[in-house]
């Protein structure tokens, strides 16, 4: 088990990590989710022992390892860039951590071949990494981390530089590959849907602080505050300033529906995910809203419609996006009626804390 107790990292006058407390179980998959510069890499460096925290404690299986150098810790790490020893073959690359650890030749050969088989590298074992594709290079790096059998495996956006198809493939394989090792497994990403696909637990990071940590689905469905909700939303969370009176939600003069279990009357920030803005009305999507179409992007099976909402004058605090199924040909400037389902509303109070969340599906 890896535990961080109030860990902070100060570099000069900048605070990279502030007061992070986390406890990660062995055999678990933990996602660090946050935008670029949120502190994901800094936090991983602290976990690995590459950097020493300015204050706080790092414990591994109950033992204080705060000041222990990375060389004497049991850590494996994979980076966004494809890092392999340039002059060594794929085989030698995978074998390198075991050679340093002094694993016997037979054992080494067996483990390398096993890992190569798992990661589909067997045909390339005698090549040097430079002559491989990006996906093969990254698989080599992953195999190196895998054979090390470390008790802490850190993956820092390992799939960010790969093409779409390879990412899909590896994303499915990764948790399975490392799950058996019984290691603490930490995966950093900027993409909410990657966190959802990986499952496990998620910690959302914002400006060097953990805003929430829990099972991925729970964090997604019940974000503790507005910042977490925004971090865990792609496309960005649609927000608006609203007033709640007796369960009725108003943005300015416009009535946005009625809530069951509404919070006390007052000012709130409304949060609404893009896929809960519908182009068609039905018995659930009953709140109609007339907006102007900004741009629309068609991905094939879905259409992202950027809206110039009329709510703009009525309290919208973000650029609104509707994510709808199917291909919709919409022209910029067209008037459009979208429909909202009040039961999908998030409400955050004036200090940003979650006040109301939709009931679980």
């Amino acid at each position, binding site marked *: 088990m890896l535990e961080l107790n109030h860990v902070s990292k100060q570099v000069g006058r900048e605070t990279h990590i502030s007061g992070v407390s986390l406890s990660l179980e062995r055999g678990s998959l933990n996602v660090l989710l946050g935008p670029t510069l949120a502190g994901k890499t800094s936090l991983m460096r602290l976990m*690995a022992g*590459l950097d020493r925290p300015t204050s706080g404690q790092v414990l591994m299986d109950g033992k204080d390892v705060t000041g222990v150098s*990375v*060389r*004497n810790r049991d*850590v*494996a*790490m994979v*980076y966004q*860039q494809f*890092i392999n*020893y*340039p*002059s*060594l*073959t794929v085989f030698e690359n995978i074998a*390198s*951590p075991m050679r*340093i*650890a002094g694993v016997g030749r037979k054992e080494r050969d067996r483990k390398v071949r096993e890992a190569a088989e798992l990661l589909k590298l067997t045909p390339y074992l*005698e*090549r*040097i990494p*430079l*002559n491989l594709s990006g996906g093969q290079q990254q698989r080599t790096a992953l195999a190196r981390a895998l054979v*090390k059998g470390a008790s802490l495996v850190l993956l820092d956006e390992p799939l960010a530089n790969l093409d779409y198809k390879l990412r899909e493939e590896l994303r499915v394989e990764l948790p399975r590959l490392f799950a058996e090792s019984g290691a603490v497994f930490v995966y950093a990403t900027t993409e909410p849907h990657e966190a959802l696909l990986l499952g496990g637990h998620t910690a959302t990071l914002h400006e060097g602080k953990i805003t929430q940590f829990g099972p991925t689905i729970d964090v997604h469905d019940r974000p503790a505050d507005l910042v977490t909700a925004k971090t865990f939303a792609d496309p960005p969370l649609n927000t608006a300033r609203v007033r709640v009176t007796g369960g009725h939600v108003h943005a300015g003069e416009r009535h946005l529906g009625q809530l069951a279990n509404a919070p006390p009357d007052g000012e709130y920030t409304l949060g609404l995910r893009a896929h809960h803005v519908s182009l068609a009305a039905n018995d659930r999507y009953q709140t109609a809203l007339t907006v102007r179409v900004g741009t629309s992007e068609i991905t094939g099976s879905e259409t992202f419609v950027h809206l110039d909402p009329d709510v703009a004058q009525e309290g919208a605090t973000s650029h609104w996006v509707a994510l709808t199924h199917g291909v919709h040909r919409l022209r910029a400037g067209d008037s459009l009626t979208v429909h909202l389902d009040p039961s999908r509303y998030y409400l955050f109070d004036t200090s940003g804390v979650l006040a109301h969340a939709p009931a679980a599906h």
Partner: protein
Amino acid sequence: MDKPWNNKAWFFVLPVFLLVALSAVIPLMTVVNYSVQDTFGGNQFFWAGTEWYTEVLTSSRFHDALIRNLIFSGIILAIEVPLGIAIALSMPRKGIWVPVCLILMALPLLIPWNVVGTIWKVFGRTDIGLLGYTLTAIGVEYNYVSNAVHAWITIIAMDVWHWTSLVVLLCYSGLVAIPEAYYQAARIDGASRWKVFRFIQLPKLKRVLLIAVLLRFMDSFMIYTEPFVLTGGGPGNSTTFLSIDLVKMAIGQFDLGPAAAMSIVYFLIILLLSWVFYTVMTNYGVERGK
């Protein structure tokens, strides 16, 4: 469909043609012309065929000078390349000392050959030179004028002082280009300092080292000014390198034919050795990747 034919491109290529012709091809052809003929002045030429080539290639004078050149270049590469890498490795990567170090390193490169020769000539004099005087004072009988070994050491010291910086700067640029993540990965693997050098830095430096070795080889093989300024090729013939011998032959003895033949041979040797270096160094480690 007719392709549009545009001759304007020739105007842009022409200056390069002229420049290369004037600076390289025409002088080289003049030398070829001299090397196959005999002249006694008065612009009278007699066909000599391969006579001068045979003479040069079989003369012990040429062989001795060639061996001196090979030994000299060998020593220069053996000292400057490892030393250059070592200095580059110990230079800071960040902070205000970077420009200071870079400027210090670049300084020797800005000094002309003959000035370097003169500096060391004076430096090594036993009566007024700091080095010569100090060595004499502590009991070393240092004298580059009469002792061949001392003359060689002095010339090698000059070249090392003058040109190691080039290797340093090339290697430094290569080292700075290595992403930080490589060092991190090595630290996580628990790799030693030597292993980091052997498996990360050296492979990543391969390209710049190739350039450094080629440049230093070609340049040291053409050594002329330093021995010329120091002892004029002496004591005896001990520092008479090919270039010095060539000048003696062409200008001292006015043997234009043999000198021209020797120039061509000299040129071909440099070309051949550079090609060998290039091929060996670019192919090293590549065959495994195929």
